[in-house]
């Protein structure tokens, strides 16, 4: 009985948020609408989907799994939003995750360092990787796609070097906690909220967000207005590298081993997809941070739903792609203009 009441309260809140977003023409409306559709589907067709349980002070349930598993991509997508907003792209974040994970595991197991130092060192590798990308794009002026493919391809090699080609297993309570811990809700999602808070604070608490948007929308004009486009572009890659390191720690900790070949594999694509679903234009400009996180959760919700419905993993990408395509189309100005004008068109034809 209380569960039904809780579900009713949840849906009322969700619909209210949707209504408000729609009224403000907020871009987060579309990904949230799609997410709601999936939740609605599950309400009717997936038994136990909404069953949340408290066990030992931890919250368990399918929705909790979704936000837990979405965390890696959500963190990546926050850094990626800044990069894409500044008119760039970072294809190397998956490989950087592997480097960060390898560093953490290697220092803990082979060098016997304390977990705190392992984590700091891993974050430093992300920082370094971001600086490398930033250097190539901002200083050497290599097109972002090309510049970041270099690290995307070579990064896993670097990670293999660090682990000497081995899969390093570890078992340290602190390191395990990053990807598996709970503080009521899963720690990876708490990390996501923290990274979101930091990203939001850094971009909106200062003028950096505005400057990124200006550079991404018209770099030439931004430079003529006295902005240092180089510095800004450099910084967004550094930030994306840092986010990738955080995501790498989560992933590595989650499987308790540094597997250089598989950590973060293809996640750069999911991150880019989350950003696009969120409504940030691939050509740069406005940043939509919260919307990107919703995009990441949407991708994970689709995947989880497919598992729950026993859709064969072979065909699962197809329905997933269709939903993503639909959201991307709705985000496109052109399609939206067409839909908005449809009544007029129909009228026009009718008069003919």
């Amino acid at each position, binding site marked *: 009985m209380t569960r039904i009441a809780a579900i009713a309260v949840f849906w009322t809140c969700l619909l209210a948020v949707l209504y408000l977003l729609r009224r403000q023409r907020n871009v987060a409306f579309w990904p949230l609408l799609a997410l709601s559709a999936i939740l609605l589907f599950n309400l009717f067709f997936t038994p136990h989907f909404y069953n949340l349980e408290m066990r030992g002070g931890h919250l368990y349930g399918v929705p909790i799994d979704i936000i837990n598993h979405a965390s890696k991509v959500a963190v990546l997508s926050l850094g990626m939003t800044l990069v894409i907003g500044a008119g760039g792209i970072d294809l190397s974040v998956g490989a950087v995750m592997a480097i960060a994970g390898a560093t953490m595991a290697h220092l803990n197991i082979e060098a016997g360092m304390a977990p705190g130092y392992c984590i700091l060192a891993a974050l430093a590798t992300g920082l370094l990787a971001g600086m490398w990308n930033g250097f190539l794009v901002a200083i050497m002026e290599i097109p972002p796609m090309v510049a970041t493919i270099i690290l995307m391809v070579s990064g896993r090699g670097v990670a293999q070097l660090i682990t000497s080609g081995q899969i390093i297993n570890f078992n340290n309570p602190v390191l395990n906690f990053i990807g598996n811990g709970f503080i009521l809700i899963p720690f990876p999602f708490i990390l996501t909220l923290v990274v979101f808070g930091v990203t939001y604070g850094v971009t909106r608490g200062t003028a950096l967000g505005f400057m990124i948007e*200006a550079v991404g929308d018209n770099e030439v004009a931004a430079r003529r*207005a*006295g902005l*240092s486009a180089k510095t800004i572009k450099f910084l967004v890659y550094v930030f994306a590298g840092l986010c990738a390191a955080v995501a790498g720690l989560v992933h590595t900790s989650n499987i308790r081993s540094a597997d250089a070949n598989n950590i973060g594999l293809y996640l750069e694509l999911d991150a880019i997809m989350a950003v696009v679903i969120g409504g940030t*234009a691939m050509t740069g400009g406005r940043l939509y941070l919260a919307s990107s996180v919703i995009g990441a959760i949407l991708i994970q919700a689709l995947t989880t739903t497919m598992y729950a419905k026993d859709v064969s993993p072979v065909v699962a990408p197809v329905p997933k792609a269709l939903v993503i395509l639909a959201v991307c189309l709705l985000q496109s100005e052109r399609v939206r203009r067409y839909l908005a004008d449809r009544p007029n068109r129909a009228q026009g034809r009718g*008069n003919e």
Partner: protein
Amino acid sequence: MRQEPLLTMRGIEKSFPGVRALKDVDFTLRSGQIHALMGENGAGKSTLIKVLTGVYPRDGGDMAMEGTRIFPSSPRDAEKFGISTVYQEVNLIPHLTVAENICLGREDRAAGIIRWKKVRERARKALARLELDDGIDVEAQLSDCSIAVQQMVAIARALDIDAKVLILDEPTSSLDEAESDELFSIMARLKKRGMGIIFVTHFLDQVYRVSDAITVLRNGQLVGEYSAAELPRLELVARMMGKRAEEVKRLEKRAAVTTKSGRKTVISVRRLARKGSINPIDFDLNEGEVLGLAGLLGSGRSETAEVLFGVDAADAGEIEIDGRATKVDSPAKAMRLGFGMLTEDRKYSGIIPNLSIKENIILAMQAKLGPLKKIPPRQANEIADGFIKALDIRTPSREQLVKNLSGGNQQKVIIARWLAIHPRLLILDEPTRGIDVGTRAEIEELIRKLRDEGMSLLLISSELDEVVRNSQRVLVLRDRNKIAELAGEDISEQRILHTIAQ
């Protein structure tokens, strides 16, 4: 009795969020008529044309070609009704050849394979009808051709589809005089064949040279349709501006020369040069004075300004400010020294199109403050509202995206961006390019006001009369060299032309 009109538009309505761009507009085009569409920036000219060519669906009203109602859904669709358009930015594909561009979408095919020989043949024929066949190589890549040739190609495309209506939106703004003449003679020929031509331009001379009829729009409404022969120039300008004729006369008057000798020099430029851009040049910029730069296109006017503002760093010479020599190697540096620069190409290097008016206005100010000192939202709103009011920027709100403003209003936003940092030197490169008469007068007023408040200004304009009217001193440039400096009473159009021609 007059023949039945070729094209009629009746009661056309079109709204954008927050803007009613067209209100009950009528427009009538007859065959064999050149019809000028006039109005200030933002009057709705481009919108009317876009409605006609199916870029935007109309909200209301009727359109008919030779009595048949039409509902074009895209420019391509409009071509099917015989309506062909040459936009200001040539809308062809630069990497294709001339022939491909003329026949694009209607290539001759055999079994699905394009027959290139046929295509080239057809392209030549279309150019021949313009008597241009020997001047233009149909196999040349379009991007290698001059803007003038590109426009001719666009017109040839119109001929190839047997268009009955040809629309030219600001066709001459990037053409030199000879090229414009060529265009006008082509227009005359097309007119003789019975084509109806809609012509949008800011140049009054050209309107009177070629048009038969003039339709004037103002704030999205029809002011009236006139016969060109019966509408005096002053009257036309007055109607476009919604002002009385006497008022117009006053605005066009030359500024009184107020130079007092011994004004304080703010900036001295000494032997400033950059290879391939400008040869060593000297000049002073004084407090409360406008220094004009005159010269033909390519004489080094914009290049001088860009080196001064650090867009392209100088490789020799120096800039002396308050008696101290400095190097300006980036716009950021120039800004810290108190320079501002309105660039020549608004779209390319001026506006941030997808950001709001407010954000565009505070951009330079924020850049100067650095990323950590964010301008508080309240203050940003006040600054934006202040400039929207002071410069009379026409917009429903400060949150409107700049790309949705008309050219003149965009220009004002960028001027506001620079005024917000209280520069001591403001460089204005073509401040009135592509802008209607009314806004032009307002910008000239503003230049005078800033000068009187003690600002130093550097003014570049292709319109000689504008330089003459507004400058206290004029540098004349030729082939990247300064060839003369005129002051006070010596400044006149004749004198400048004479100097250049020497």
